[in-house]
């Protein structure tokens, strides 16, 4: 089991979410986060250009069994990118997942995912 954590641009969320659903990856957790990256995000605010210190991002947490790791990664990589790719499109982290428990049934391991 792996935990896939993706940090993406907010405006690509629906693209990624939809692509994941198409690929049968339907169990995801989404949160709003902010962070520093290489991207310098210029926003127009009351006519002035300002560069915020912390840039809003979307974080997706997806726990998957081994056989779904590749399809999940490919899906996110394709859907999260702007055109041919821009600085700030985000990152994906993969970490080993020690255990997974479904609260309702107390099932453990791969079948609880």
């Amino acid at each position, binding site marked *: 089991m792996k935990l896939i954590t993706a940090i993406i641009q*907010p*405006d*690509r969320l*629906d*693209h990624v979410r*939809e692509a994941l659903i198409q690929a049968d990856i339907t169990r995801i957790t*989404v*949160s*709003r*986060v*902010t962070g520093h990256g290489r991207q310098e995000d210029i*926003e*127009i*605010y009351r006519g002035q250009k300002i560069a915020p210190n912390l840039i*809003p991002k*979307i974080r997706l947490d997806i726990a998957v069994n081994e056989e779904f790791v590749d399809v999940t990664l490919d899906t996110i990589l394709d859907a999260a990118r702007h055109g041919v790719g821009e600085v700030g499109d985000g990152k994906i982290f993969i970490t080993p997942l020690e255990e997974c428990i479904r609260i309702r049934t107390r099932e453990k391991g791969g079948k609880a995912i």
Partner: protein
Amino acid sequence: MMKKFSYPLLLLAAAMTFSGTAWGAEEVVTDSGTTSWMLTSTALVLLMVPGLAMFYGGLVRTKNVIGTMMHSFAAMVIIGVLWPTLGYALSFGPGILGGFVGWDSKYFLLQGIDDTIMSTQIPEYVFAMFQGKFAIITPALIAGAFAERVNFKGYAIFIALWSLIVYSPICHWVWAADGFLFNLGAMGAIDFAGGTVVHISSGVTALVAALYLGKRRGYPRNVMHPNNLVMTLMGAGLLWVGWFGFNAGSAIASNLATARALTVTQMAAAAGAFTWMIIEMFQHGKATSLGVASGILAGLVAITPAAGVVQPSGALALGALAAVFCYLAIVLKNKLGYDDSLDAFGIHGVGGIVGALALTFFIRPSWMADAAAKVGGSWTVWQQFGVQATAVGVTIAYAAVVSLVLLFIVEKTIGLRISEDEEMSGLDHSMHGEQGYGLINLN
């Protein structure tokens, strides 16, 4: 009711030079009480526009909140410029082209009214600005039908054209002293504060626009939750408050007629919300806040044409009737599957039609007696119903046909429907380069 009587001072001054003091007694002066109330009403009607922005803004998804609120604010900005420039002359100038529209070059940029006090004893500037707020909110109402999928530039052009080519002519027919609907039948088609001019015209256009532009991506398969019902409720509250200016101001007076309009407005709004709440309790076992907000609006829309002629019992009936019909219209919409996203037609179109037609059966007896006296005989409810139906039919037909042409032109030139990619990213990002919220509220 909104008829514009004006006695230009220029004419008066000319007359005075000939006949001396005999004319002096008839000079129209400003009445400070009426003017104060009309100034207040003007501000109250403008308050409805940010109210509408909040109402609509709360109902869309998070990624479209700014874009949706901007639709209302854009109307405030664009029509705010257009109305004093052209709109007022087109609506309230003397009829040209066989009464199709008004025009008087002295109203261009309001030049000719600098000194005018109207016979209603208010400066014409106040009347022009009061009317301008109606012209602002009407196109903003349409935006609810094509929320979450419209190009900002196309929208801006569309409402500008719509205001000049659809709103101004209808406004002229219904409210100008020489408008043909104003003079239809015994005492004209009854449209006290904008049942046909504002709500039916915008509601019908909304339906046409929703059908022409098509559904939002994923509708109705994906549930699209409101991002902030708290804001929607605050918006509904502001609309209710502002509506006192909208209706009670439309008497262009500060007297008995004003008090009547204010009373029936309050009662119809409450009756609409109450009825909607009861329906939901029976249908779903729960009264929703959005249901109450919708009921408030349905009641307010229905009483708008009727506020000058119905008595309190009629106000309760109209509010309740509007809630029932609007509720059914939304149920029907869901069955038919077209995407009038925020029910601009379901509430404003249907509520306006119900109000403009059903008011006939609740007109106070003294009005009917006056009408009968004016035609020198009898004037029946059904004759008045015919007049109302004509006004409603003309408004529906004109708004639907011309709006469709305008939508087609804008879509083919500037573009109205945004691309799939932009729609997925959301209006806030793709149209404005902004976002509505910080770290809160994701959907």
